[in-house]
């Protein structure tokens, strides 16, 4: 069971995190789709924090022995999904980057060639 003190600490931490998210979103240094994913986490933690009876109820319904295990399990699954999505995103980026590097190299070659043709 949680004490009121830890409940307040968690709530404050989550609110600071949400403020960070908002700042990053305004500066456009974090994509909106990732903001949504992390906002979901923050709100989830906040709900669990403010309604301490929710996790015991959910673990009981799903047949999980202890609410703490339930928290770890859900957290693990969620992080797994996030990391997997990032691998997909990185693969796509690397293909795009390769294309871009090749185009830049070919453009520089064209530039060299046209310079050479001028001097001749």
């Amino acid at each position, binding site marked *: 069971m949680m004490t009121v003190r830890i409940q307040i600490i968690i709530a404050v931490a989550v609110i600071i995190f949400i403020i960070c998210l908002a700042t990053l979103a305004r500066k456009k240094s974090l994509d909106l789709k990732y903001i949504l994913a992390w906002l979901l986490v923050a709100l989830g933690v906040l709900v669990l924090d403010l309604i301490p009876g929710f996790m015991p109820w959910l673990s009981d319904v799903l047949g999980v022995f202890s609410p703490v295990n339930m928290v770890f399990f859900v957290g693990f699954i969620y992080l797994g999904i996030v990391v997997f999505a990032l691998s997909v995103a990185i693969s796509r980026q690397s293909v795009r980057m390769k294309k871009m*590097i090749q185009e830049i190299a070919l453009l520089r070659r064209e530039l060299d060639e046209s310079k050479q043709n001028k001097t001749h």
Partner: protein
Amino acid sequence: MKKIVIIPAYNESECILNTVEDIRNNAADFDFVVINDQSSDDTGEICRENNIPVINLPINLGIGGAVQTGYLYAFRNGYDVAVQFDGDGQHPASYLNSMYDALIENKADIVVGSRFIDSKGFQSTALRRFGIRYFTLLIKMITGKTVLDPTSGFRMVNRDTMKTFAYDYPRDFPEPETAVTVLKMGKRLIEMPVEMRVRQAGKSSIHLFKSVYYMIKVSLAIILEGSRRYDDR
């Protein structure tokens, strides 16, 4: 017919001039271009000083990305034939003309210079040969065709295959995988006996501790490539 030699080079300052000289002397009607894959030595400067056409990649792409840049260049500049040629002196330019004849006479889409038809010249180590035989077997199982030297980087292609490679080429360990690609597409692949030399300088891009990773990754790539569909192109 416009023909071009693509020379991927990573830190080949010691032998790039010899390679180019070899092409000038033995295959004079081939154009050539060096793809400098962000070498940390002065490969790029040497090319510029000696008026060797060079494409300098701004970021290291690895052998596949470098070679693909060459195919893209060849395709956009209207070449009919392109040949991939190592910058480290392994491949003798004296074969280029007979390779070209083989491509035309057999109406082939790709000609692979193979070390293992006549088993002459540098044959690589026993372990590598074993690995290569395994790939030959795997490719045979998947495509039904025999490629004796699927890891050979000495390959000549016509414009059709050039286009395929220009748009899609694996980033690392490309040779066995693309052999499967062209066979799956129903293209005509032929092999020609070639005597390769021991590399003059530079190292093979495959180190010993990487070889297990290499075998697994290339096997997976071959199997995946085998499962792709290319609709009668």
